[in-house]
């Protein structure tokens, strides 16, 4: 899931995947904008057939947090 998230992010922004870890913060470390995040979430929802609620997005601020959340949704 970690790699899928990185691959999805790369569809919308230029990223050096070498520096990305589970702790990487979308806003503080990668400087993603709201538009980048919404685009990435929308693509993951579409590809994986899941729904990510607006209420939960605020907590999903790192690559690791989003990865764990999506895995729990797929179970």
């Amino acid at each position, binding site marked *: 899931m970690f790699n899928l998230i990185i691959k999805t992010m790369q569809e919308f922004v230029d990223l050096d995947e070498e520096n990305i870890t589970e702790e990487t913060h979308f806003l503080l470390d990668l400087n993603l904008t709201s538009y980048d995040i919404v685009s990435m*979430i*929308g*693509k993951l929802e579409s590809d994986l057939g899941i729904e990510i609620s607006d209420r939960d997005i605020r907590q999903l601020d790192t690559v690791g947090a989003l990865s764990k959340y999506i895995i729990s949704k797929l179970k």
Partner: protein
Amino acid sequence: MIYGKLIEEKLNKSIRESAHELLAFGLLLEKDIVYRDENIASNKWGKPYLKDYPDVKYSISHTDGYIACVISDNMPVGIDVERIRDFNEYAARRVCDDAERQYIYSSHNPNREFFKLWTLKESYIKAIGKGLSSPMKKANFILTKDERVKSNRLGCRFALLEDEADYITAVCYLMNWRIRDHEQLYSI
């Protein structure tokens, strides 16, 4: 007052720093506040405010090549600026309802119309101070042919600015609302 400025491509500082400098300029001009000397706090959703001037409301935004900010007396406010570019369907599906998507796709310039709606929605969630945890899809807009903005958000006033050809700026003022303890919105 609303401030906006084009930014040259090669700067020796980040665009985020430039946006804060624009805010500092506005605060000094309008309020005699020296921004760099102020304590900045944040509400639980991350929206910043001046600890010693809780009635001064402000919002900043930046995009590739443009920075903007707005300062308001007491009235909660949000601003968003975007460079017009190709939008993606995933974002449109996530934040726009069926009527808005139909409006976008039937327009002569879908990219421009999408980013008008996006910035309006983003300005609203920034004004209420809850960021992306607030559903953007529930703030809906109709853009009329005479360039008025109609919204289902009561007590809000929206401004859509297109001073620069490649950029859209939207501002939302919460007219009849105030914020208690920097977090709780209440009607006046």
